[in-house]
């Protein structure tokens, strides 16, 4: 038992019962509850008065909500990719990262999904986008990228829930067995679905888990493509570009890895998981960040090149607006925050130091938000007809909803950190065991 007390993996299962940083957690949770309250107020105001409480107008009739939608979804994708891709390729280093990355995915997909619904003129009718048999005998309009986006995000949400939950079943069982309170035993017991650790269970579980993972990876591409087509399928100069799906995919995982970096460093510090989230993990995150950063940078360059190479006056004008127009701050802000601090990641010393890595992650997170903002607003504020050009400023209630949505993300995430194993205990064990076996062998 003394040996076990020192076992870093065991510590994870003990976190829910004996949280190492209760004070910090309460402070964070208090803040996120306040933000959650702000979310409820903003949604209330929105539903009572209408979407006019935002700053949207004609021509910029999409605003912060769609920016945030794309941004949150992008963040979510990294969790899926880290987890599923590394699972399928059999990389054991994923085990320290996958659980919280999946939780991050789950909560950011929920946040992302709320935005376009709230952004509707009549949000209570959002389900009309679903192809269900109805008395109106009207189907969704299948040519619309929005219909496909709705399907994609819905499937992605279901997939993310399944993937996260399936992966946690053996750990729920472990928690059930270790819980002392009756309530926790019953709760974890229900969540564990009667898991007894039989070989049969393991075999079926592995099959199901890999199947969902195999579905999740292409789904990421599908979802990024669907919301990229939201822009690219229309005739709007600056949007109608074939590179958008790839460009959005790179940007999505780039921003996602940035958030993973922040969360990993924070959890590692707060929960004392230095032995599990090792320097080698940080190094991996840093490398991924650098690589996806360059893919995103390529997207910027390709987008600009395509516009210039097209010779289309409107595409060039939009590019010019992005560089020098009213929203140039968002373009150059995105370029600066995304790519300048990133260059430090060439150095291994930076990649393995938690604080610089987290700061670079933060910089990229903000930078990618600016990029989303830039792409959306510069496409609309000056499109085809000069007479209809207009300026967009997000209103207080848009910012309030954004801040509130961060509460929607943080509150459940903090509950997850507090009450559930933040890492996959059995997989860590399995990996350690295999490593030892290999060592003995």
């Amino acid at each position, binding site marked *: 038992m003394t040996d076990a007390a020192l076992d870093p993996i065991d510590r994870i299962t003990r976190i829910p019962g004996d949280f190492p940083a209760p004070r910090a957690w309460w402070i964070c949770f208090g803040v996120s509850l306040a933000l959650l309250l702000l979310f409820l107020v903003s949604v209330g105001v929105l539903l009572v008065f209408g*979407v006019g409480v935002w700053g949207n107008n004609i021509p910029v*009739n999409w605003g912060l909500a769609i920016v945030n939608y794309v941004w949150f979804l992008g963040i979510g994708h990294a969790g899926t990719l880290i987890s599923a891709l590394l699972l399928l390729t059999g990389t054991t280093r994923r085990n320290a990262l996958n659980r919280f990355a999946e939780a991050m995915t789950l909560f950011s997909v929920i946040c992302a999904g709320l935005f376009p619904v709230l952004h509707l003129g009549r949000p209570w009718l959002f389900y009309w986008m679903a192809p269900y048999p109805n008395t109106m005998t009207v189907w*969704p309009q299948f040519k619309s*990228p929005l219909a496909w986006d709705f399907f994609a995000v819905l499937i992605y949400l279901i997939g993310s829930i399944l993937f996260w939950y399936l992966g946690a079943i053996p750990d729920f069982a472990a928690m059930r067995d270790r819980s002392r309170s009756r309530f926790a035993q019953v709760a974890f017991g229900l969540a564990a679905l009667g898991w007894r650790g039989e070989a049969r269970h393991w075999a079926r579980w592995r099959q199901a888990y890999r199947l969902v993972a195999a579905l999740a990876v292409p789904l990421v591409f599908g979802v990024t493509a669907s919301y990229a087509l939201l822009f690219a399928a*229309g005739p709007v100069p600056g949007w109608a570009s074939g590179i958008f799906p790839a460009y959005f995919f790179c940007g999505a995982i780039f921003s996602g890895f940035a958030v993973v970096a922040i969360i990993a460093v924070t959890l590692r510090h707060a929960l004392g998981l230095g032995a599990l989230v090792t320097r080698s993990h940080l190094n991996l995150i840093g490398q991924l960040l650098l690589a996806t950063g360059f893919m995103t940078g390529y997207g910027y360059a390709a987008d600009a090149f395509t516009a210039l190479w097209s010779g289309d006056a409107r595409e060039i004008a939009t590019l010019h607006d992005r560089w020098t127009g009213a929203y140039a701050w968002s373009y150059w802000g995105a370029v600066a925050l995304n790519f300048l601090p990133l260059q430090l990641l060439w150095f291994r010393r930076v990649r393995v130091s938690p604080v610089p890595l987290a700061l670079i992650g933060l910089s990229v997170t903000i930078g990618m938000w600016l990029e989303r903002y830039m792409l959306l607003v510069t496409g609309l504020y000056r499109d085809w*007809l*000069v007479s209809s*050009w207009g300026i967009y400023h997000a209103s207080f209630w848009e910012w309030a909803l954004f801040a509130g949505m961060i509460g929607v993300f943080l509150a459940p995430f903090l509950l997850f950190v507090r009450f559930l194993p933040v890492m996959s205990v059995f997989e860590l064990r399995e990996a350690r065991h295999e490593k030892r076996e290999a060592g003995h062998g």
Partner: protein
Amino acid sequence: MSAPRPPLWRALDADPSEARAAREFPALAALPPVERRDVLRLMGASLALAGLSGCDWGPDETAMPYVTVPEGEVVGEPRFYASAALMAGYAMPLIGRTYSGRPVKLEGNPDHPEWRGATDVFLQAALLDLYDPDRSRTPRRQDRPADWAAFDTMLADLRRRLDAEGGAGFALLSGEVTSPTLLRQFAALAARWPRARRFTHEPLGDAPRREAAARAFGRPLATRVDLARAEVVVSLGHDLLGPGPEQAVTARGWAERRRAWRAGAGAARLFAAEAAPTQTGAFAERRLVAEPDRLPALARGLAAALNGAGAEDGLSEAEAAWARAAAAALAARPGRGLVTAGPEAPAEVQALAMILTARLGGLGATLRVTEPVAPSGESLAALTEAAEAGEITTLLVLDANPLFTTPGADPFRAAFERVPLRIHLGTHRDETAVECQWHAPLTHPLESWGDARSRDGTVSIIQPLVRPLGGGRAPAEMLARLLGETETDARAATRATWREPWGAAFETRWTEALTRGFVAGTAVPELRPVPLDPPLMPDRPAAALTLVARPHPSVWDGRFANNGWLQETPAPLDKVTWGGVIAISPALAEEKGIATGDELRLTAGDRRMTGPAWIAPGQARGTVAVTLGHGRRVGGQVAAEVGADAFALLPPDGARVFALDGIEKTGARVTVATTQAHQAMEGHDFVRLTDRGAPLPPEPARASFYDPPKPSPGWGMSIDLDACIGCNACLVACVAENNIPVVGKDLVAQGREMHWLRVDRYHAGEPADPATYFQPVPCMHCAQAPCEMGCPVNATVHDAEGLNLQVYNRCIGTRTCSSFCPYKVRRFNWFDLTGDDPPEIRAMRNPEVTVRARGVMEKCTYCVQRISAARIAAKKEDRPIRDGEVVTACQAACPTEAITFGDMSDPETAVSRAKASGRDYPLIPEANTRPSTTYLARVRPDPEESA
């Protein structure tokens, strides 16, 4: 293109002896003679019931739904009545469409000899004035509610006193009055009380032009221009195509001339010298930017050049060249030339312009001269003098608002206070009403009997489209009561006016007048006065800064300030809504470091005015232009607190062009709610130009995966940019037809105006003297519509007749359609914009058009309800829809007939012919949307003549 003539109805007329009434209302024909009110009550159908229950405050009404539908009434079927609305005293002939007794749309009267179906913004918006919830409903004493009995007691006392004193001390002040009935009553009043005096104050009326005519012809005559016959027009600051009571008529004539010129008949040349940009200047082949003080010199120079003396000295090179070119053009078209100067120009310049026109043989052709269609009273200055002398003891203000429409420094304001008894009769509790001991509500012309003349003198009998909504009295009824007549009914008074001249044929002619909307042959005969010698033309002292105060294109002198439709109509040139601007030249802005939206303070003597700066391309360097009519202090919820009052800045003599002492920034910034912030085309060809007879280069074929479908009928529209003068009549007509809500200044400033049809304005060239183009933009109804592809729920779909439909109750508000729309013609209900409308506004709505809910997208439908009506009519008669049978609201309203609509699948229709002309082009063809709305390019002046 005139609207197909709807079957016209007489107003619900009490006289059962009428054969026609018997045909129309067989149930009534059998009734014994009855009171008009009883008939109206019986007729409930058209007049008082169901829909109006919400807005009828009449004490004797019981609202109830139809149990037995009155005979002849088909619920949901419109009825049309010919009537007239008033603008500055003159009739605007119209045909009102009513549903179940509620007027919902006004159209021009195509048979009227002067207007010929044209309309303007004021005619279109008169409907909202009728339903204005802020209208005065009860008499007021000392600005507190009183009742009619008390008011009538006061009138009786007044009558006794006037009888005793022969009318001494009584003054009647009104705007311009052309109504034969009111003039007959005025005459009766003068006969009974010979010492009573009548005064006329029409703030932006014809008085300056009559004074100029007096200098030109020796008598104060009325003058009208006839642009249909004017092949060469030289305007010295006269905005012939600009807003005002004459716009519809001049614009139609101008468009006819231009059409003839394009077809090769004669010329259509326009030379304009102006200080501030106008719609007229926008079409001038040579536009000279001239400070207002240059007009006398220019007029002299033009006269000299016409005399063959060459350009006179004192003119700059550019001015002399302009004058020479204008003179040469005039000389080349004898009898077809018109020289004209604006009402703000010095009287001698206006007079010289008339004399030059007369010498060029333009009298009776390009310039029509008549006796004034109605006699005016004495001037306001005379009233001021009399009141100051204490000679006026009772002042009756009839439908005028002099305490707002006189200069702030006018001594009238002080003199007014000295009158012991002041009575105001008006539709609104306005600035004058609150300063009077008594105020009593007048009816709107559309709900009362009366008559009026249009500018050529043609009389229109005004018949009510609806029973009085707010309990007011018609002006004729007021005067009849003042005179103590036994029959005080306005209809009786109007009939009495015409009974004598028409004699035995009275009933026939009365019926004819009501059904046609005018009395044929009542135009005032034209005169051929001999022009006097040109007046002396002293130079005006040049000022560093000159202020030009012009009527506001939407609210005029302030009388329409409570009309939300007009307030929200973007001004033709600056596209600013909800308030006027202080327009300055780009050069002055640069010199003083002024940016659009800076609050400016103008100073002239001790008079001041503040307002937002607007940089107006094409404005003369030292000219500062403001608009009158805003800054109302009372007068309704809409009117109050909008913009600044420019009357306050005018000098006591009311001059509208004068030297300004100073212009300075206050440091504050003011929101200017403009609907178009960018004025240049940025290298695009949204507005295309071509030479006369030269077709545009053909559009390159664009890729399509499928053969384009050819629906039949396939609805399409053609808009002639060579005819559009940017007057906004189409826009207001669209608002009225399609129940488009008014959103207010803040939402317009945020880019959330709801107009389905807008008129874009572009400038090209140097800011100091740019070219100006207008382009109405409705929905393009693209054959390959990006909006339809974007909508996830099938809320915007294509129909079998080529229409791009918007299904409001399927729309969930993703706004993808708007994001994808290259033309940005879609409008979104950001809030519930209609739910809290007062009952009056609900009663006004067109029942054929859905009122949109919060959160849905809307846009131009090509007036699909009118297409449906035509389709139903055609199906009933088992025939195809005829060309010209569907007339959209914008098309019907357009005074220049710039809009053509119809079936594109039939090559013989007007719209197909327009699209087949070499001037046809699509807007933004590179978007490959294949729009059904296309444009006809504007035609450049003939090159050989513009040299």
